[in-house]
């Protein structure tokens, strides 16, 4: 007997046995109560438990003090996060950049010790977890935004430059996206421009900035290949 048959049969039996005594249990109050219980339980599940299950955290290899570094360097963010000659953006610095200053331990913090012992002396790249890495299908041009549109880093990256330690890296267990991309608020609300970096957010900002072109025949918006690869 297939499962379908069984189900059908069970359903029938159910109707056959309970159908007759259906009339006597007419307590309407209970019915509403059960509705409310079901409703509340699923709301708690969906709004509270589910996000907890969906997101996980990882710690950075060691804590990085942006504020301290910004004070030390001359050129602000661009001292370490700069444009290469071909117009591409360097992103997270490589070890070689760090060791320009950190050949020897600078300061006596625990993080500095980890950095020097485990990475500088071992000549290993630091496996930083990038909060704002877009998925592979996205082509994001820093040049277009920073040089072309003269945007500030803060618009997308928030005040990370003022941070004194590295916050945990949160990511979605299903997609492995950084939570900074998908958005911190489970309902999808974004207070700040950097709270979420999904495609709609790109589009919204482009619209606000008045840089929406009508190059796409299908959408009358920016063509797909502007930001995708």
């Amino acid at each position: 007997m297939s499962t379908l048959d069984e189900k059908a049969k069970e359903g029938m039996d159910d109707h056959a046995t309970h159908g007759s005594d259906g009339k006597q249990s007419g307590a309407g109050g209970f019915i509403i109560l059960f509705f409310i219980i079901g409703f509340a339980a699923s709301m708690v599940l969906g709004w509270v438990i589910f996000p907890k299950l969906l997101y996980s955290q990882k710690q950075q290899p060691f804590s990085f003090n942006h504020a301290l570094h910004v004070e030390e360097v001359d050129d602000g963010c661009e001292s370490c996060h700069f444009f290469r000659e071909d117009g591409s953006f360097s992103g997270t610095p490589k070890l070689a950049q760090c060791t320009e200053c950190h050949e020897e331990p600078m300061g006596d913090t625990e993080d500095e010790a980890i950095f020097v012992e485990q990475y500088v002396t071992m000549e290993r790249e630091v496996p930083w977890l990038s909060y704002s890495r877009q998925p592979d299908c996205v082509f994001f041009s820093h040049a277009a935004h920073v040089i072309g549109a003269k945007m500030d880093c803060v618009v997308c990256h928030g005040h990370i430059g003022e941070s004194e330690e590295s916050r945990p890296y949160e990511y979605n267990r299903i997609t492995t996206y950084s939570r900074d991309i998908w958005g911190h608020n489970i309902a999808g609300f974004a207070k700040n421009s950097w709270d979420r970096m999904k495609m709609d957010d790109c589009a919204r900002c482009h619209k606000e900035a008045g840089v929406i072109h009508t190059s796409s025949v299908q959408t009358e918006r920016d063509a797909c290949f502007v930001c995708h690869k």
Partner: protein
Amino acid sequence: MKNEHNDNPPVMKFGMAIDLDKCTGCGACMVACMSENNIPFKEDESDKLVSITWMRIFKLSNGKSFPDTDICYLPRPCQHCEGHGGHSPCVSVCPATATDYSRETGIVSQIVTRCFGCRYCMGACPYHARYFNWWDPVWPDGMEKYLSPNVSPRMRGVVEKCSFCFHRYQLAKNKAYLDGERRVPEEAYQTACTQACPAGAIVFGDLNNPEHQVHQIVKPDPKHGGRSQNPRAFRLLERLGTNTKVYYLSSREWVRRSGDNYLEHEKTGQASQPHH
């Protein structure tokens, strides 16, 4: 940026001219494309109906018997049809807007992460320029090292096709921003196949820009749907109204005739009967 409000960038129309008299069928364009665009491969690639080759070389024959036989090779990238106002055969049929026509560049884009694999576009394309990922791409252990970060590897179950190496335009634009230039120079954006072709048979550039070599070769006639005014030039299946941006050149009449369907009495290059 505000002052550029609704100020659309210059309208370009990237296209190609492929000289079939020069093309030797060597296959360099195919492999240049594969290695530029992270195209996967399987143990058996001899079934050409399931073999992803954004650039594919067809072998044409004049159909005559020995010793009057003649053959010609025809490299076929995506033709980047403009159709009527950007409604190329594939673009208008995609139900999820995964493929699109850009008025800015004339390039037909394919966003594989949007595509859900219905394959309607493949049915629509008369050039068979679209390929479905029937399998998950797998690189033998170690070989994934040569994958380029500029082109996202595709997953199983989506359609992909030639992009005119659009990522190279994106990168060239980065450089242009850095250099404070508004336009990408001709030599800064060339497709991988153009660059590799040892016979120099492929010329790529902006068909709208009279300074570009491709414009000078093709001499597109805007009054007649972009038809070339070069007597050696033809487009594949031009009579369907696909309005492609890949032009072919040949001094051999049989080759030009092979590029389209003609009734017996019709002259090669004759326009089709208007049917719209």
